[in-house]
């Protein structure tokens, strides 16, 4: 980690410490928008990271942005930071200016494109988009669309959309957005290769989730270590029990594995947007999410199962995020599409990344 990055991390940590508190998180589950948290991030220029200044961004690279997301995951920040990053990166890839408005992108792995029909200066929009994080609070939605002239990426204002509120297992807003022949004149549309852009959103989205999950796992690990240090039973701290030690070691193993997998995926993203690394990482981190949550809850026992404790901020998010932008099963199918192209004895090269490297895709 560069010195610059360490400084950013330090100030973001302070910010989350102050504005992404237990109360803010619980309140957000009751439907309150974490206004101050978002505003502070905007003010500190943390919403348009990994985007050059000439496109309206704050500079930095993907690694910076994903380190921030990792902290957002660790602190259960109840805001669509990942989605805003993702939307901006997509726009950047298309040479468009970005924004620090609250922007969101569906986290479902298969979203049907919405329909747009040219009408004078504007568009008539029709369709519904499920699993949209924080749509009820967001200003804009980035989504794939179809027009009479082919596929587009659309950046659509949400003010006239119908929102059906929903939530994931962690109580994070995951709304359905419905456009019922809405007329919009301020909708940005960019012609694209539809298949490629859909893939772009899926891979980018999965990457954000691996980083956030690595952060949440770090939090679970810290809470568990802390608990085993503080809690005594039969007259000694419970980390002295061999059964607890076995749990701790397995938890450490899953946490470290997820961290490494996420870091490697992040590292690969700067070189190529569609790497096997992202697929491998999402599978491995998803697996870690289930195992680690289960271990931590077992160790923290009844206490960790209450709303009062904060363990569930992370465990419930892990259970949610592992399904967002693709489950293990979904990503296994994607990896399998690569596998079937291998020659005999070609697997090792795929794992070591020395052959079968994809060409860097120009978007």
């Amino acid at each position, binding site marked *: 980690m560069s010195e610059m990055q360490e400084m950013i991390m330090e100030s973001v940590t302070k910010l989350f410490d102050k504005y992404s508190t237990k109360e803010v998180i619980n309140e957000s589950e009751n439907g309150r928008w974490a206004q101050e948290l978002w505003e502070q991030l905007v003010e500190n220029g943390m919403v348009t990271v990994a985007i050059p200044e000439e496109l309206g961004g704050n500079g930095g690279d993907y690694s910076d942005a994903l380190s921030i997301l990792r902290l957002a995951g660790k602190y259960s920040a109840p805001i669509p930071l990942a989605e805003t990053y993702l939307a901006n990166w997509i726009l950047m890839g298309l040479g468009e200016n970005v924004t620090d408005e609250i922007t969101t992108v569906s986290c479902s792995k298969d979203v049907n494109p919405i329909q747009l029909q040219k009408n004078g200066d504007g568009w008539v929009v029709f369709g519904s988009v499920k699993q949209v994080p924080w749509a009820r609070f967001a200003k804009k939605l980035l989504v794939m669309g179809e027009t009479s002239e082919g596929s587009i990426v659309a950046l659509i204002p949400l003010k006239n959309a119908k929102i059906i509120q929903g939530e994931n297992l962690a109580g994070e807003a995951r709304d359905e957005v419905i456009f019922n022949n809405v007329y919009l004149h301020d909708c940005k549309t960019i012609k694209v290769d539809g298949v490629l852009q859909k893939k772009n959103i899926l891979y980018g989205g999965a990457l954000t989730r691996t980083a956030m999950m690595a952060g949440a796992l770090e939090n679970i690990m810290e809470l568990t270590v802390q608990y085993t240090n503080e809690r005594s*039973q*039969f007259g000694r701290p419970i980390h002295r029990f061999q*059964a607890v030690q076995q749990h701790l070691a397995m938890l450490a193993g899953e946490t470290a594995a997820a961290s490494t997998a996420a870091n490697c995926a992040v590292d690969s993203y700067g070189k190529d947007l569609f790497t096997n690394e992202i697929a491998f990482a999402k599978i491995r981190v998803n697996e870690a999410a289930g195992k680690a949550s289960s271990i931590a809850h077992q160790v923290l*026992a009844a206490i960790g*199962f*209450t709303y009062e404790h904060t363990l569930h901020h992370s465990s419930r998010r892990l259970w949610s995020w592992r399904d967002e932008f693709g489950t293990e099963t979904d990503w296994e199918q994607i990896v399998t599409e690569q596998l079937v192209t291998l020659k005999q004895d070609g697997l090792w090269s795929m794992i070591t990344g020395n052959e079968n490297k994809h060409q860097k895709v120009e978007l």
Partner: protein
Amino acid sequence: MKALQIPVVDLPKHTEDLRSEVRQFIKDEIASGSFEPRCDSWLSGFSAGFSRKLGEQGWIGMTWPKKYGGGERSSIERYIVTEELLSAGAPVAGHWIADRQSGPLFLKFGTEEQREFFLPKIAKGECFFSIGLSEPNAGSDLAALQTRAVKVDKGWILNGSKIWTSGAHNAHYMITLCRTSPMNPDNRHGGMSQLVVDLAAPGVTIRPIHLMTGEHHFNEVFMEDVFVPDDMVVGEIGNGWKQGMAELAYERSGPERFLSTYPLLNELTNSLLENGDTKGLNEVSRVISRLWTLRNMSLGIAQMLEDGIPSNIIASLVKDQGTKFEQEMAEIARLIVSVTPSTQSDSRLGRLMAQSILQSPGFTLRGGTTEILRGIVAKGVIQK
């Protein structure tokens, strides 16, 4: 390894009628909208009305003597009713503890007056119980508990608090383990007694403990100078630890230890059948094999209980395996079908998945953690 032998139970022919009755009853209830099947319904499915209906059917206190409102039926018959209700995800939380633990406790240790007073009400599904065991600083180490009763004229004055008491907010009484003499370090488990606390009595406060799901099933129960009359002492003063352990033993091997997530398995299978997903059904086949085995082990233990054969080790072992199975069920399902779990999902499968995942941490904690159970099993097999 005699310690691990479990009999094979061939269910008697006549029990088929009973099973059909229960199935018909459940079918009618679902048809009438009385309940929606849900996971973990023996903790989270409270319905006073449903409990009363079961009482009317004679399906509470089934094995108890008729003179106390029981049915004098076999453990196996009770088992059948229980497994049918649980597999259907029916709301049985109300009377659950009274039927499973409190009733048998009164039968074993209670006075004739207590039996006559409590058992018929329980059997009617009108009187619910809680168990007051855990305390804030005495997790698995129950000997450390602090709640104490002091002898006064005609009764006891009780002070202290209990935690994790499931259903106390719906229950009428709580059987409370407390110290009736100070702890003796050489006999940490001595000096404890069991008192029946009327939860409506002055000095009792019940505060909800919300689960991470936001649901309210557990409570903290505070007792401040609560007067408990002498006739509400269960068994002998000083024998509470032993009685409490006996009470816990009833918990260990029932179908509730592997069926908590069965409604999910059922719905998953429905969905796979509908989609003709044989790959998914292959995975379900393996799950079924485990479940089928667990059920046969559990049935065997019910038979052993009926025959008075000690089964503590095996019961612990079945609970360990069963509760792990319940947890795995949730994890397996999400990889087989592409449904997003959410408590507000449009699809029943999505809702059942969400319930299973969110409740799952509790399965391997309640009634003895995995670690405690494994200790019991290991010591058991070593000693034989």
